[in-house]
C-alpha cells in the first residue's frame, strides 16, 4: 500500500483519536492520541492489509527547544513499523507532556519493544506503563537524570570512579 492509503485506512478506523497525519517524500506519519496508541499499534499489526509485523525502531524526540513547540507537549515517542509481507512502512507518533511523560508499553505486541523502551526510559525519562522490567539499558544504575534530554548539560559527567569533574 502507498503511504496515503495506509493513513486513510487508519483515519477511517480511528477517526477522532488521530491527532494528525502527514506524508513527506513517501514517509507516512500518524500522530495518535495516547489513549488509542495500543489499539492503533495492534490494528497496524493484526489488520491483514496493513500487516506491520516488525517494530523497526522505537525512540523519542525532545522538543523542549524546538521552535513552535516550546510550550509543549515536550516529547514525541516514535514507532517505526514495517511489514515484511507488504513491504511498506508507517511511522506512528504519540505526544506526551513533561509532567506526565508516560506511554503504555508495546511489549505485548512486539517483544523487541522491551529493550527499545528501556533505552527511551534511560535516555529521555519517558515511562512505559506495564513494562515488565523498566531498568536503564545503556547507562549505569548510579546515573542521575536522562542524558538525551535537551536540558541535560552537555558537559555534565557522572564518573563511577576517578575525580568528580
Amino acid at each position, binding site marked *: 500500500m502507498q503511504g496515503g492509503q495506509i493513513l486513510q485506512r487508519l483515519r477511517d478506523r480511528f477517526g477522532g483519536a488521530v491527532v494528525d497525519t502527514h506524508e513527506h517524500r513517501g514517509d507516512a506519519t500518524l500522530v495518535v492520541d495516547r489513549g488509542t496508541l495500543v489499539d492503533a499499534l495492534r490494528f497496524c499489526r493484526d489488520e491483514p492489509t496493513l500487516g506491520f509485523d516488525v517494530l523497526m525502531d522505537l525512540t523519542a524526540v525532545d522538543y523542549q527547544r524546538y521552535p513552535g513547540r516550546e510550550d509543549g507537549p515536550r516529547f514525541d515517542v516514535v514507532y517505526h513499523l514495517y511489514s515484511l509481507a507488504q513491504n511498506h512502512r508507517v511511522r506512528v507518533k504519540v505526544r506526551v507532556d513533561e509532567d506526565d511523560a508516560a506511554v503504555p508499553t508495546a511489549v505485548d505486541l512486539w517483544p523487541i519493544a522491551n529493550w527499545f523502551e528501556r533505552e527511551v526510559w534511560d535516555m529521555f525519562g519517558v515511562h512505559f506503563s506495564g513494562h515488565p522490567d523498566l531498568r536503564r539499558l545503556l*547507562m*549505569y544504575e548510579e546515573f542521575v537524570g536522562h542524558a538525551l534530554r535537551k536540558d541535560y548539560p*552537555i558537559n*555534565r*559527567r557522572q*564518573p*563511577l*570512579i*576517578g*575525580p568528580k569533574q
Partner: protein
Amino acid sequence: MGVGSFFTSKLDEAIGWARKYSIFQYPFVTACCGMEYMATACSHYDIDRFGAGLPRFSPRQADVLFVVGTISQKMAPVLKRIYDQMTEPKWVVAFGVCTCTGGFYDNYATVQGIDTIIPVDVYIPGCPPRPESVIDGLMKLQDKIATQTQRF
C-alpha cells in the same frame, strides 16, 4: 662511583635491556582503534621485532596494558580492575585520542582521558594512530623501560 653502585647500575641496564624486549601486552580493545592495533600487530608491521609480538589475554601474565579505544564511564571500573590485576612491573599505553583525552567524545558517556583513572606511560595520539605512530610509541616505551630504575 663505588664498586657497589657500578654493579647495580650495570645490573639495572641488563634487566632493562631484557625487559624492553619481552613486552607481553594485554590489549584492552573497546572500539575502532582496535582495527589499527590489529594491523600493527600483524605480520606487515611485525611488532615481534620489538619483542612485543605475543599478546596475553590474561592481565596476570601481561606487562603492558594497551588501552585501545573509547572508554566509557561504565567501562572505567573494569579497566581499573584489569590494571590492578596486573603484576609489577607494569606499564600502560594510551592508544588513540579517545584514551588520551576522550577525543571528540566530549559527552556524558566517555571518560575524558584514562589518566583520570590509571597512570599512563606513553600516549599515542591519532584517530586512529597510524601503525608508524604505534611503533614510535612502542619504541618510546622501550626507551623508558630500559632507562628506568629497575625493581625486582
